[in-house]
């Protein structure tokens, strides 16, 4: 990390071809693209279901997962999957998961703190160099291997197929659970399946951004898209696009810097979010200035503002 970073030539094409000459950059881009798509889609559902806290907690499960894997000498991805899966089951079995979310929140908080405490215990038992802590918490996308890319792409495809299969009932049960239950949708089982999908998405994203910054890919694109449009399909597509922009731009900038890629990914996603909020504010002000236009359909210019 302390090595000198290459300087950009400010010719985008030449810079791009320089970046793509390195095998590790291609691996990193492929892995982070697959992860960005899954995280944006699952994260969009997560924001819709107001489960950001649960998503963050699952992300925190990845830290003891990685630390335990290091302790046991198995691949980190295995540790991520086992611990995130266990976290999803634990959260689904918490008291009051169906009723008042306040009770659920206390339980989720306890699960999260315990996960982190366990991770810290594993790290101290491992007794390794403390520099490893940074990798465990903030990820190491530039170290992704060929095998990991294959696994990440397969997981991404699996999650996408599953999501496509249950999207409609899941959306209905997220928006109006009583109605969905009355229509015969298995609301509780869907909630568990969704948490499992969230765990998969988080376990993948952890390998790119590290457990602490998973929310950058999970919640930021969805939160930005939600401001710009209310139509579900457009909002989903926008969320995926913003996620991809965040990882590509973030990795591109990180290539020319000594700072880690996960930081630039988070900053790029945050810039998109700020731009979206500003565009949303401007639109609101315009609508308030023209009180005759009472229909709530947002003008198409809101989408054009996303590029800024």
């Amino acid at each position, binding site marked *: 990390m302390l090595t000198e970073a290459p300087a950009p030539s400010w010719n985008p094409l030449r810079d791009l071809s320089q970046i793509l000459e390195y095998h590790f950059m291609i691996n990193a881009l492929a892995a982070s693209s697959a992860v960005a798509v899954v995280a944006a889609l699952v994260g969009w559902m997560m924001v819709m279901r*107001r489960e950001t806290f649960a998503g963050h907690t699952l992300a925190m499960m990845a830290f003891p997962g990685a630390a335990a894997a290091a302790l046991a000498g198995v691949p980190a991805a295995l540790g991520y999957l086992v611990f995130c899966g266990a976290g999803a089951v634990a959260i689904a079995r918490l008291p009051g998961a169906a009723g008042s979310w306040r*009770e659920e929140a206390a339980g989720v*908080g306890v699960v999260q*703190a315990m996960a982190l405490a366990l991770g810290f215990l594993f790290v101290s038992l491992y007794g390794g160099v403390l520099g490893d802590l940074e990798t465990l918490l903030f990820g190491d996308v530039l170290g992704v291997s060929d095998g990991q890319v294959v696994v990440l792409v397969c997981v991404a495809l699996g999650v996408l197929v599953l999501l496509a299969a249950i999207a409609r009932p899941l959306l209905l049960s997220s928006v109006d659970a009583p109605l969905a239950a009355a229509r015969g949708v298995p609301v509780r089982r869907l909630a568990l399946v969704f948490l499992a999908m969230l765990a998969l998405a988080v376990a993948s994203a952890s390998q790119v951004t590290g457990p602490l910054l998973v929310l950058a890919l999970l919640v930021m694109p969805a939160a930005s898209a939600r401001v710009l449009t209310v139509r579900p399909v457009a909002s989903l597509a926008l969320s995926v696009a913003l996620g991809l922009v965040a990882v590509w731009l973030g990795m591109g900038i990180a290539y020319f810097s000594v700072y880690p890629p996960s930081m630039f990914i988070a900053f790029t996603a945050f810039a998109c979010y700020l731009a979206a909020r500003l565009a949303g504010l401007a639109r609101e002000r315009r609508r308030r200035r023209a009180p005759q236009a009472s229909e709530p359909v947002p003008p198409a210019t809101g989408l054009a503002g996303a590029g800024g």
Partner: protein
Amino acid sequence: MLGQEYMRNALLAGGFIALACGVCGWFVVLRGQLFAGDALSHVAFPGALAAAAAGIDERIGLFAATITAAVGIALLGRGALAGRGSRAAGAALADDADIGVLFAFVLAVGLYFLTRFSLGSGGSAGVQASRTLFGSIFGLGAGEAQFAAIVAALVLVAMAAIARPLLFASVAPALAGARGVPTRLLSIGFMAILGVVAAEATQAVGALLLLGLLAGPAGAAQQLRVPSAAGALLASALALAAMWGGLVLAYLVPSLPPSTSVIGLCMLAYLGAVAVRRGAGGAHR
């Protein structure tokens, strides 16, 4: 055990911090603001690292960052409510995703300072990061411990002063507002107090584990359905027991970090309360 000075310091500072965390945590859970509390604890991370990178006392960075963020979150929630007008459900929806965005950003800022610090100063950055994220209560000096205890005691006094109106405003905000209770001021004030607690507890159990001290004892009190004032007292008693028990455990088992044992006991308290509740529920049926 009490002959060791570091142990006396840890018990003194930890005890007061646990009491403050228990009381504040109970209100946090009651008000459904646990996610905001979580965000505040994460803000402590860039705060401390920014102070370390700038070479000033880390407590200045901690308090400045958490209190600023606390007031910011309180104002953000208010702004969201005001901006969306009558769409109350939409405004409530805005909160958790926005807090999530905020703290992914905040952690990225922390990573920036961590990297910058490690570029400047060789090996000590990892130690600093570990101390901030996971606490180092056995490393507190006598002066630091007394300072932490005094601040935590002040927090307790402040909480005692606003407890009644805050409880009213949390349970029935509309009614409290109609009776002339300044609900907005209270909610900003409470978040600011929570910011102080977050900065305090970061020194004891670390930025990442503070949540357990807020949520575990309070969640246990809530599971047991203990009513208002007694619930807050029970939560702080449980937090104190977890803190002292955890410290003693960590003293007896050297490979066990104190933060892990403290949070582990908080978790046990919560699980025990859930089990008691389930048992009681079964007996009633």
